[in-house]
């Protein structure tokens, strides 16, 4: 019997066997930070609503926002903002068709990681 000739097609990355690379990790981190920021936004808008409502309500929200939990959320959000910011700029640069060769893309990836940490520390020092 004639064997069916199979065409060797490239498979899309299979998550269980996919080796994480700098470029793929920095890409997925953009999505995680962007969507995770909703937690910080909710806390900030709740805090603002409480400030607009009454001193008693503000005391409650401000207590949460300045507690260890609030510090954790806002510090994580700050890093997420800067990471998403740099990765977003990188995205615009990629969209323009530039920086897509692997050495440049990896340099930009490190730029996002190191830059976001530096900007986070800098922001905490300034504000």
């Amino acid at each position, binding site marked *: 019997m004639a064997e069916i000739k199979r065409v060797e097609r490239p498979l899309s990355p299979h998550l269980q066997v996919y080796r994480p690379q700098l470029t793929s990790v920095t890409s997925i981190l953009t*999505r995680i930070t*962007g*969507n995770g*920021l*909703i937690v910080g*936004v*909710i806390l*900030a*808008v*709740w*805090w*603002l*609503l409480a*400030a*607009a*409502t009454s*001193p008693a309500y*503000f*005391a409650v929200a*401000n207590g949460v*926002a*300045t507690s260890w939990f609030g510090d954790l959320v*806002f510090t994580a959000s*700050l890093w997420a*903002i800067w990471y998403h*910011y740099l990765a*977003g*700029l990188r*995205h*615009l640069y990629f*969209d323009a068709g530039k920086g897509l060769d692997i050495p440049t893309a990896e340099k930009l990836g490190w730029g996002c990681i190191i830059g976001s940490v530096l900007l986070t520390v800098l*922001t905490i020092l*300034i*504000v």
Partner: protein
Amino acid sequence: MRYLTDRKRAVGKGASHTGTAHHWSMQVSSVGLAFLVPIWVYVFGSTLGQSHDAVLAVFAQPFPAILTALVIFVGMRHFAKGASMMIEDYAKGTARKMLIIFVVSLSYVITATGLFALVKIAI
């Protein structure tokens, strides 16, 4: 002879089926946010932790109030579209529809709440 143009046959056949409107809207909002967010982080960061009266005084001023309104509005449109894109990648069928309705609604609720708070502080 067919009267369909090449363009007419191509429209809607891309991966998104809707063309580049979504992507372009993300680019526009991202550039807007790139200018707004660093200044807003400074304003919010330096106000957080102050007394109630001080917080009200800051957000009653035009610049912090308008800046915060823009960050909330543009940011939440950016979030609604970005989160919808993530859901479209990972969920299908009814779950996809329900999750998209949820994140779009959530972003409108946050926008309305934030703007209400700013208006109430301002007046």
